């Protein structure tokens, strides 16, 4: 099903941007459409963690492991492709420390780390002395700590804009402020999109609209059970650096894996290059309600203090949030939609879309430009079937 012609990518978030760059490099003629500005959706509303620590063995972990390889390669490539004044990706391999604070949590963490090791994740339980070395200011009240040297981070907005700029320099057109309203069809096949700015025709249409992908797919003739899962992040004022790694409480793993609708908070605390401390993040299914709520901030603060009591006197100066594109079976959708010929999806990455973007683009490009292969993320996978019917 090679479609080397013109591809319309809907969404200028990190997923759309990564796909645009990769398709351009594969020889496609690419048009990116976004109803808002580039990097104006979820990709500028979260953090830039590239994590293996929160993923158990399985296809998502493999996708992340492949992405990490690609993130290593892409830094120097982008430096070559982009003008010298372009801000750097702030790619940093700082490593993560997962900390359990209860006996039960310690048990779960150890078991999880053991499974991860069988899948090639470096996950090392560290003793008292090493914990002191890694994070001198960590609470003494922890029951177990596992160090993940592969965890990394990137500045997600700069990453998105870099990928887009690279795609542009390869010939892609990026239209901001153009909303896709519906499909242009020929028989059962989608041959373009109707937009707020007229029709755009193409040989393939890729939905990369983040948490709005469900609404968009419906307009294009296919149901997709993507739901928004709200997250809030806090940023402190600047201070001398006292946190060296990404530090998470062990509940994080549970919260990521769960689909519960009510508020879950598990902290990820880290220092940024600017000297601020980033405290993330909450998970809550509240539709597209974009309020930043005091009760959520309070819960985030309380969790962060469990890890780093010294933060008590540090002030929070900013809070922001967004909507993770949540999938009911916890896997992104990447590939052709068998229900509508010409329609493709690359969405539903929930809280890991920044990390997973590069490998996602690689799979989509391979499927679209070469021969489709074994793909655990395809739309018609069995685990998604019941939800597709429900969403229809």
């Amino acid at each position, binding site marked *: 099903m090679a479609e080397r012609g013109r591809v319309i990518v809907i969404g200028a978030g990190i997923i759309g941007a990564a796909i645009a760059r990769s398709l351009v490099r594969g020889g496609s003629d690419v048009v990116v459409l976004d109803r*808002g*500005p*580039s*990097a*104006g959706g979820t990709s*500028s509303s979260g953090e830039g963690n590239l994590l293996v620590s929160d993923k158990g063995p399985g296809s998502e972990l493999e996708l992340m492991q492949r992405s990490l390889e690609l993130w290593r390669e892409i830094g120097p490539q982008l430096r070559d492709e*982009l*003008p010298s*004044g*372009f*801000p750097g990706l702030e790619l940093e391999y700082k490593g993560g420390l997962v900390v359990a604070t209860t006996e039960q949590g310690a048990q779960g963490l150890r078991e999880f780390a053991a499974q991860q090791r069988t899948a090639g994740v470096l996950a090392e339980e560290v003793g008292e002395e090493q914990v002191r070395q890694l994070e001198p200011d960590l*609470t*003494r*009240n922890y029951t177990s700590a596992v160090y993940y040297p592969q965890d990394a981070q990137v*500045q997600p*907005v*700069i990453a*998105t*804009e870099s990928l*887009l*700029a690279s795609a*542009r320099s390869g010939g892609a057109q*990026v239209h*901001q*402020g153009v909303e896709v309203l519906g499909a242009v069809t020929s028989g059962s096949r989608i041959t373009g999109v109707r937009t707020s700015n007229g029709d755009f025709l193409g040989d393939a249409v890729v939905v990369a609209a983040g948490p709005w992908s469900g609404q968009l797919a419906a307009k294009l003739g296919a149901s997709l059970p993507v739901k928004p899962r709200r997250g809030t992040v*806090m940023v*402190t*004022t*600047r201070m001398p650096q006292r946190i060296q790694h990404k530090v998470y409480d062990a509940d994080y793993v549970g919260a990521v894996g769960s689909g519960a609708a009510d508020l879950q908070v598990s902290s990820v605390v880290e220092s940024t290059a*600017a000297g601020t401390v980033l*405290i993330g993040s909450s998970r809550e299914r509240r539709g597209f309600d974009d*309020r*930043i*709520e*005091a*009760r959520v*901030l*309070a*819960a*985030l*603060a*309380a969790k*962060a*203090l*469990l890890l780093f*009591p*010294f*933060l*008590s*006197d*540090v*002030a*929070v*100066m*900013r*809070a*922001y949030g967004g909507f993770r594109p949540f999938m009911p079976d916890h896997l992104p959708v990447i590939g052709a939609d068998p229900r509508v010929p010409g329609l493709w999806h690359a969405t539903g990455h929930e809280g890991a879309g920044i990390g997973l973007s590069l490998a996602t683009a690689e799979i989509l490009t391979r499927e679209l430009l070469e021969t489709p292969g074994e793909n655990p993320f395809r739309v018609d996978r069995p685990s998604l079937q019941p939800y597709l019917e429900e969403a229809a």
Partner: protein
Amino acid sequence: MSEKACQVLIIGGGPAGMSAARAALAGGAQVVLLEAGDALGGQFWRHLPESRKGGEEQVLHHKWRHFNTVQRELRDDPGCEVVLGAHVWAIERPDGGQAPAVHVMVGPPDGADREPRTYLPQSIIFATGGQERTLPFPGWDLPGVYTAGAAQALAKGERVAVGQRVLVAGAGPFLLPVVTSLIRTGATVIGVAEASGWKRLAKGWLSRPWELAATRSKAGELGGYLREMVHHRVPYRAGTTVIAAHGEESVESVTLARLDADWKPVPGTQRRVEVDAVCVSHGFVPRTELALTVGCTVDAHGFVVVDDQQRTSVENVFCAGELTGIGGVDLALAEGEIAGATAAGTQPRASVVKARNVFRAFAERLQTAHGIRPGWQTWPEPGTTLCRCEDVTVGEVREVAAATQARGLRSLKLTTRAGLGPCQGRTCGRNTEEILSSCGLLDPGRTARRPIAIPVRLGELAATTSSQREETP
């Protein structure tokens, strides 16, 4: 954490807020007035602490007596709770048609045990005022360059002059009281540079002069300042401004230039003038974070849109004073009174509605005569600081915008870091937006959004949750 219901909650204890409180009380409402500072009065009635009173207040402060009366009334009325040191850090848009919940920390900002409170009002009046807007020019961040407001605060509050040879530059009649305050602290003001030219000044102030008659008190106030300026032979130049400040450790001289109608420097008109201090004030920006968080509609200049009763687009939410437009103390007093009366469910006095309309027209004249013009964007050089907190230059912002071709402020803030520092874009936000406006921004106004209205310590935040577990460090 305590939750308190109340009828009318007013945020901001300046002229607008005090006037609103008084009117709401007169309307029979039970009122809570929150003020972050340690005294009522706001910026206009900034005064010495009781103990250091120098007896000069009547001279330095217009309408001082009125202030004292209202303050006494509010203090003595059992239906009014005035909370000083009340820092509103968050506000929440509720689900239904109620008014928002207001989260406050009460106590000195760096005090160890501020008391967290949440107010659940039936109506809310924002009277959070505005702050000066300073446009960036080369050297604007040198020591010795003050905002006019800071200079005036030093003069009024501390009786300290910022320098001996001081130049006052910017736009608007608010430059005049600054000159007066400086003169009274013993400084020599070597000149006032008003950026707007005579033509625009005439258009703003001289058209339909009969309408101005109604604003006699205002004209009288300004006239007083003018007389004092003339008396001290302070030269006033229109269509002129400071486009650069120079100096090693601190400011030693400035470059003055004549400006065209768009505030672009006219070639060949530049000259150096020696000074040891400069006070600049180019305009005002409203403090809208709370209003924006609850969803109030704002206009293209960032001011909150209100109807004739001072109602915003959000049910049970009112605004008064500089949030709705810059018009001085008389407008603030009138708007406050109307908002307070309406929030209490009563009709505002006809005379005050009339006064409000008159002073609103005055505010429009102000905008016509002195409003900031886009030509200022030619003053900065590439290396001129735009965002002081994060040390971002005008050149960097332009370069990154050109490289990314982004049309979103959210993206541009995060790629340039402009506005991400401790002041959260309060100083540079509008300037950054205007510098970037040529990108065709799709989300203008965004730099004014701040869901956390003031910094709050993590320990304080955590203490507001019941799910907090005990931690022994």
